């Protein structure tokens, strides 16, 4: 019971930080839309072309926009020692990471869902693709949150700008992208791919807490 209460408290604090400024939530979404604009202009406004590349662009931009919000996953809590305090309160680093991921998923990724249908209008995507997009994004964004956790905990290790974290997110998200976009190919098996995505998500939900916790421990030791 006490333990559950601690977890609840942790998530509550996360939500307080996220919601302490509602505008924060919107900014990522705004960023996403603007980057769509950028792409459309860069590609030229050929309607046929846009429809072909639309899904790919939306997915990759969802990815890039959430990389932006990932950078500060642990930074602040790490720098001012809150992570140590929470740990000493009785949560192992693995658990902290796990709930950090869950709250990131809830408070940052899920709000993105709302923006997907609107974005699809810009590209005149067919309704079935939009539906697939939303479905894959729910699973994919969980994977992204895991990757984000790994990457930003890795970024704690060096006090320089080196954004190795973002690079890792990109690297590992390539398969996610392939499967998620591939789901719309008529000749691919929908259920198989969804199962594959869920599988990847589960794997990362296992790997992320373990590896992030290891990185955090290392970082604490070399602060």
């Amino acid at each position, binding site marked *: 019971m*006490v333990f559950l209460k601690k977890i609840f*408290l942790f998530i509550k*604090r996360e939500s307080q930080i996220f919601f302490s400024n509602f505008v924060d939530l919107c900014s990522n979404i705004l960023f996403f839309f603007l980057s769509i604009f950028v792409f459309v202009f860069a590609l030229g406004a050929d309607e046929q072309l846009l429809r072909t590349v639309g899904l790919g662009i939306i997915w990759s931009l969802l990815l890039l926009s959430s990389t932006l919000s990932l950078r500060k996953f642990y930074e602040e809590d790490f720098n*001012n020692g809150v992570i140590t305090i929470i*740990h000493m309160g*009785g949560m192992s680093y693995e658990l902290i990471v796990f709930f950090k991921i869950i709250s990131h998923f809830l408070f940052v990724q899920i709000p993105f869902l709302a923006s997907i249908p609107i974005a699809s209008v810009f590209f005149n995507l067919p309704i079935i693709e939009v539906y697939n997009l939303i479905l894959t994004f729910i699973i994919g964004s969980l994977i992204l949150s895991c990757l984000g956790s790994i990457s930003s905990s890795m970024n704690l290790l060096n006090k320089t700008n080196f954004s190795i974290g973002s690079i890792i997110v990109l690297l590992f998200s390539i398969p996610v992208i392939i499967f998620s976009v591939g789901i719309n190919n008529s000749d691919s098996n929908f259920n198989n791919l969804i199962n594959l995505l869920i599988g990847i998500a589960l794997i990362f939900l296992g790997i992320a807490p373990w590896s992030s916790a290891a990185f955090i421990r290392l970082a604490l030791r070399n602060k």
Partner: protein
Amino acid sequence: MLLINNLSFYRNNTIIFEDLNLSLNNGQITQIRGKNGSGKTTFLEVILNILEPKNGDIFWEGKNIKKNIFNFFNVTTFIMDQNTSTKKLTVLDNINFWKGLCASKLTNADILLLLETFNLLKYKNTKVMYLSKGEIKKLELLRLILEQKKLWILDEPYNHLDNSSIEILNQTFKDHANKNGIILFASHFNPSINNLEIIDFH
């Protein structure tokens, strides 16, 4: 009782301290003094298992703390030189978070009284980032009383505090020691506490 046995720590092959033995009994207040860079902060972090000692062991109530580190954490409050309060949340939000984290039994009235004694009551709904350095430090020190643990480990607790807060802190230390608590802190300050044990880092 905290027992430290032959503790050594090296950072990148340079020795920080070596073969350190120390025992802290119940009701004892211990201050670590020493020159800048002599390894006081490092020592505290080693005790708390944030840094890993090269060799040596630490025993709490006769048990090696490594066996079950959470049992040790369960009786320990650590106040670093940093401020662990979350800058974007208000003073009360922070307190409630800490309170929940250690399952503290203090009532809200107690907490308001605490804030009152530390002169922080008027800031209870202010975000921490709008406080002065000393006020943030005092908020941090509230955790000592909030968490109701037996072993207090503090790094430079006197920095930024004004005279009356120093008085209050000293009094808090003494009260805790009278209740059989153990206090270990590193500081350059010379507090007026009787029976203060002083360890000198070379």
